[in-house]
């Protein structure tokens, strides 16, 4: 992990995190090594038998969120802030890949779509937009 990036200081503030749609398992393992309890919800059926993955769709299925919810690919789903109230770390990209239903081009878009009532921090880095806030 590159600890100089703001998102890692956001993540390390919490004792418990629920990741949504994150295919970067290295980050999750690093956070767990730091003593943070991490729940990993991912709808990709490739992880159906992976005991470390909750193989469900965070939007459509019955799932439980614990601690701060970290949505790693907001461009791929309905806004998580509309179904969850609490602290959120949101990351999305503007690439418009086939399969991206919601390309993210600005922090304002994430804030508005997820109905954030408070924004702690935000930044842009290349194609990615990051927002830390509360819905």
């Amino acid at each position, binding site marked *: 992990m590159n600890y100089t990036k703001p998102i890692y200081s956001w993540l390390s503030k919490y004792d418990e995190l629920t990741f949504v749609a994150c295919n970067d398992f290295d980050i999750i393992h690093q956070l767990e090594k730091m003593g943070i309890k991490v729940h990993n919800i*991912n709808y990709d059926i490739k992880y159906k038998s992976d005991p470390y993955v909750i193989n469900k*769709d965070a*939007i*459509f299925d019955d799932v439980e969120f614990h601690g701060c919810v970290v949505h790693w690919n907001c461009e791929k789903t309905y806004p998580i802030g509309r179904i969850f109230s609490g602290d959120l770390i949101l990351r999305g990209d503007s690439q418009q890949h086939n399969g*991206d*239903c*919601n390309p993210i081009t600005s922090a304002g878009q994430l804030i508005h779509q997820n109905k954030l009532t408070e924004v702690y921090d935000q930044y842009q880095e290349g194609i990615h937009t990051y927002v830390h806030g509360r819905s």
Partner: protein
Amino acid sequence: MVYLNTLKWGDKYDEKYVNRLYTLLCRHLHVPFKLRVWTDNAKGITNECEIRDYYELEKYETNRVFTYEKLMLIDNDEADINGWLDLDIHINADITPLVDAPHPNITFIWNFWNSFEQMSLRPYGKGSSCHVNSSFVFWDKGVASWLRDFTITWWEQIEWTYNSLDKYLFYQHARNGRLSYWGEGLFSNYNVNGQKGLVTLFNTSHLYTNNIKTDKKHYELHETDLFVVE
């Protein structure tokens, strides 16, 4: 009586597509049936078909979830056996065994002509996969209500997420094992494995809805010898 439904709207497919489908059904379906054409323009369609208003199916104003309107055929004046057929299909042989069999659940086409591992499993997480096809679908009276109900309940999320009906069906319902499928070898995709089985599809709409550019020529039905039905 079997109610068969087909949708014809806009100008992609003309009345010749409807009339040839009716002719093929008369030739290859040996149970009493009625073909209901849900259309915004009935000009030129044979009087043997029942004309219905396409806009009755347009429950939502949206340019997403391409052909979601098919789901509004469920619980909509159903017969004992109901089906919807896309216009751009060719019926090669007797489909009576498919139509006349019990359909305890709504039954779709699984894209056996493509490798599931390569085409759908590998890119699954990207949201770009689709292994379900809704060109030839049947259900018995009352058994598909769950799908219409789910769609209406979750419409806001569905509309946000999916650009086509087939992708919605694949990611939400195939994933959870809620759909039934026809057996392997019954359907072919002309643009992948040619004319085989009982029914051949052309399956070009996903190229438009996903804005996929490809060097390979994908044929529409009317560009092939199969279009003209004597």
